[in-house]
């Protein structure tokens, strides 16, 4: 009898104290920049802000896949299977593109790395930011960010090489792997721009 009372008391205490860790075992995501913060950093002031949601058709998708750096959802480890993308575009009074930003994710085996890629009207990368990274790979991504790795992409376009320069060979193997993932995200952003936004740049 006394034993049952002890069990009951312990159970009541447990119910009150244990509601928290529901799915604590999912590796947490670290937000380095919110979407708005990234846009504030990457877009120029003064332009009108537009948003374009793009769903890749089968034709678009096959074209992108032919580049060799895109993967089907949940196939391989390089990611890129998402079919829906969102562009944020800054245009001037004459509808000329000042800057466009697209958010591209690489799904690595240690989680999602999201990169905001900013491009000018000619499809050249003006800047790029890692906005989200999983807690575990942050250890490998952080040295890249501290070393100003993202500046490597300035002036590059969709034809950029996915080979790391010699100056990054001193980084750990994992950091180099994530450097390539980030580079692929930037390249994919530029490829998306060429496919979806660039056709509009000639128009007014």
């Amino acid at each position, binding site marked *: 009898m006394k034993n049952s009372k002890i069990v009951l008391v312990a*159970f009541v205490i447990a119910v009150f104290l244990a509601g928290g860790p529901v799915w*604590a075992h999912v590796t947490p995501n670290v937000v380095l920049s919110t979407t708005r913060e990234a846009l504030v950093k990457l877009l120029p002031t003064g332009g009108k802000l537009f948003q374009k949601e793009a769903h890749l058709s089968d034709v678009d998708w096959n074209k992108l896949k032919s580049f060799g750096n895109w993967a089907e959802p949940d196939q391989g480890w390089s990611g890129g299977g998402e079919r*829906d993308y969102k562009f*944020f575009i800054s245009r001037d009074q004459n509808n000329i593109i000042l800057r466009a930003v697209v958010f591209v994710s690489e799904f690595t085996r240690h989680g999602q790395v999201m990169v905001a890629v900013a491009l000018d009207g000619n499809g050249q990368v003006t800047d790029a930011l890692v906005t989200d990274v999983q807690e575990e790979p942050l250890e490998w991504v952080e040295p890249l960010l501290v070393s100003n790795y993202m500046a490597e992409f300035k002036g590059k376009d969709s034809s950029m090489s996915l080979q790391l320069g010699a100056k990054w060979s001193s980084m750990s193997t994992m950091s180099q792997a994530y450097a390539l993932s980030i580079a692929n995200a930037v390249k994919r952003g530029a490829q998306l721009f060429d496919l979806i936004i660039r056709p*509009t740049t000639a128009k007014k």
Partner: protein
Amino acid sequence: MIKLPHLSDFPLAVKLLVTSFLLTLGLEYGVAGLYTQQQFGFSYQSIVGTFSESKKGKEQHMMEMEKHFSDMEKHLREMEAMSPQDNKVAPKDNQFGETEITLDQVQEMPHRVDLKLLLQDGHVHFFSIGAMNLLMGACLLFTRLSDRWKVVLTPLPFAFSVVNYASMFMIKYVADSFAYLILLSGVLMGVSFAFEFFYTLYEIWFVSKKESSHEK
């Protein structure tokens, strides 16, 4: 049948060892819960948005992220005030199929747990959660609970863990409503842990040797 000794009868050094282990694990469990609450939140919407592959799920996640980052609003409004934009302009499309928006109307990009991360987390955490359940269950075996209660209680944390993980896959490939099962099994995992935690500590420090031998 082998009769297990009771924790309350063990030497002080053993009691301190078990207590230290439990306190460390309990602290870690609590911090993990707090961290997850900060990062994701414990709600049906946040779970669906994180794991579901359905369009509805993704939209729900975007709404959840909106809520999650609402505390950034004030700061960003101040930043936006530096650029000449009119917040009261109604959304309109241009000739390129783009919708004019303000920074206030920007929705946060979703963060998602895809299959690769789920597998990665699964293979690491299944082992660690299994080991944790084993040690907690072992502590419970050395208490004065009846064998009937021990038979019922010791396998439950393992079962809840399996259901919890299975639901993460089910929500991705079967139906969003498995989010409720994630919540339920997650809470039950926590309840199991807390029960084993508090009951074991109670036995160690609040049951005297005399009381223990009297019950024999």
